[in-house]
């Protein structure tokens, strides 16, 4: 069953092309998980998150100054190389400045039929953020209606909400299995599922998840791994090769706080009479991206409770090189974790990671966590 998700993730572009051919629908490429996909599903548009490919490239230096995060440069590279040539539209929901550059260069050099910048508020801790975002999503809805040439009814919106909610709920259920002493799904496989969740039609993804969960319910396990329980957290991370390496040296990734993974699906829309407002509320209240986590640090209690819930022994703190928002959180989060007897290993990610050099650190970290009697 896992293989289905792996295939989706590996052949993401082919999948989208086939989906288009099959449904005749439009595909929207999006940056950042603050994009309200509910509205896109309401409009029968397939949202596909723009991600990098983890190959060294030499096409972005002319467009993005090298001091910005490698992930945003890797994303733009995919566009410049024509890998997303099937997109009908491109959009971004406002978060950090880094990824914004990938979007602005994209709109200039890889023009598409429809482009949209959604000014997602940063002050999510202000009571005025929700009404403001409600209005912005309403404007976005109007722009979409204009583009697709039809009105979006409340039934459509409700439908979009249902599709997203069901899929997010099932991911939650999957994660409950990762609380087991021997999680039936490895961290690497979980990541495959989480990545495919952001590019595959949620209805298909939901179907596959149901089948997988049925298997797990029946006691099936896809993982022999029962190593040291680890949490990964920090910047965007879809580096499966890295997770595989960690699990190859007897670590097991059981939890995460990444925008691929829990931050993407942790909370759901609680529909009320004003559907758009209920969507806005969901995005304001979701586990925050560090660029929006001020003045209070809401991420710390969230991460600590997750670490407790999943019985985490150590945390690997991942940061995309030059990622300012995370650089501004990591010292505080590390301090909080260590104060709660959760040791941390900090690693800086680039487009590709030096597995060899990182392996030493991960192994040493695991040796540090292991209770052995060699002393």
């Amino acid at each position, binding site marked *: 069953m896992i293989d289905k998700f792996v295939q989706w993730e590996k052949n993401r572009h082919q999948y989208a092309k086939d989906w288009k051919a099959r449904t005749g629908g439009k595909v929207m490429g999006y940056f950042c998980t603050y994009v309200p996909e509910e509205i896109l599903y309401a409009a029968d548009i397939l949202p596909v998150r723009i991600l990098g490919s983890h190959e060294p490239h030499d096409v972005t230096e002319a467009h993005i100054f090298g001091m910005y995060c490698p992930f945003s440069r890797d994303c733009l590279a995919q566009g410049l190389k024509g890998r997303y040539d099937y997109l009908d539209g491109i959009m971004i929901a406002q978060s950090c400045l880094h990824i914004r550059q990938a979007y602005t260069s994209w709109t200039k050099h890889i023009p598409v039929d429809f482009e949209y910048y959604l000014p997602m508020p940063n002050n999510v801790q202000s009571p005025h953020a929700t009404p403001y975002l409600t209005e912005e999503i309403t404007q976005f809805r109007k722009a979409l209606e204009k583009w697709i040439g039809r009105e979006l009814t409340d039934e459509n919106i409700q439908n979009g909400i249902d599709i997203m909610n069901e899929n997010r709920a099932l991911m939650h259920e999957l994660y409950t299995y990762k609380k087991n002493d021997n999680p039936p799904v490895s961290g690497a496989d979980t990541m495959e599922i989480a990545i495919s969740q952001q590019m595959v039609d949620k209805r298909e993804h939901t179907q596959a998840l149901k089948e997988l969960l049925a298997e797990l319910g029946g006691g099936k396990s896809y993982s022999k791994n029962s190593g040291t329980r680890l949490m990964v957290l920090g910047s965007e991370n879809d580096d499966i090769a890295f997770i595989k390496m960690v699990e190859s040296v007897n670590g097991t990734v059981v939890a995460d706080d990444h925008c691929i993974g829990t931050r993407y699906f942790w909370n759901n829309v609680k529909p009320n009479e004003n559907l758009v407002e209920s969507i806005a509320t969901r995005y304001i209240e979701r586990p925050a991206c560090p660029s929006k986590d001020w003045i209070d640090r809401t991420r710390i209690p969230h991460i600590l409770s997750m670490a407790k819930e999943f019985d985490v022994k150590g945390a690997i703190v991942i940061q995309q090189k030059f990622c300012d928002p995370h650089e501004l959180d990591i010292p505080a989060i590390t301090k909080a974790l260590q104060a709660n007897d959760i040791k941390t290993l900090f690693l800086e990610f680039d487009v590709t990671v030096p597995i060899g050099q990182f392996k030493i650190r991960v192994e040493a970290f695991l040796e540090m966590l292991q209770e052995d009697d060699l*002393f």
Partner: protein
Amino acid sequence: MAKEFWRWKEYNWKSETIDWKDGNTVSCGIDVGSVSSQAVILVDGELYAYSSMRTGSDSPMSATNAMNWALEDTGMTQDNVHYVVGTGYGRVNVPFANKTITEIACHARGANLMYGNTVRTILDMGGQDCKAIRCDEKGKVTNFLMNDKCAAGTGRGMEVFADLLSIPIEDVGELSFQVDEEPPPVSSTCVVFAKTEATGLLREGWPKNKVIAAYCSAMSHRVVTLLQRIGVESDFVITGGIGKNVGIVRRLSQELGFETLKTDYDSQIAGALGAALFGRALAEKARN
């Protein structure tokens, strides 16, 4: 390159007092580093013999060579060794290793024996990276940090320098103090550019010693910042090749305000020694 000034001397040593045949457990640690490889042989935890050699591009070979050289005129053969632990960059390629353990754990363990159980902070300046390690009284790692991005402050950097100035690497430290006053540190962070900067200074007529001093202080300063990020707690020691470079060691402890503990052991064998100690524990564990 006529003479390679950057090369560390290769050497081996053997105890005159211990007869390995009297020992119950003979354990061996092999540290295949990126620049040099060491083999250490312990008899019941007592240092019996060791060797240090340059790592070749074929690491299994380097491991075997180091081992054989340590065994030289001991009458001991590999079969007499009960347990071998491999560590270092090339640890996975020690053909005859029973187990591998990272050099971070091994350096802490080794330092614990070499300098005593009061050691809390270890600076391992290896060939290509620089590790700051915190450990407890058992020599178990509690935290560690490695330098990223840039190699200024690694053994390799110093070697590039020794070569540029045609000064044997062993002499660099002492020479760096033969200056009237401490010059400002070289500003460039990139080893390659530091080299250019040094060339420039020499062209301006700076004496070699002064240039060396400028580089040593730049290097120790970079390392100090790394150490301070993880926090230095005494006792503080420096292992690895650079541990022998007084030019760095003295400046370092000066800036840190910490004296580094001295040891009669060769600071370069800390990793292999730690590995051998783990080897002994593992061997005895296997027995009972």
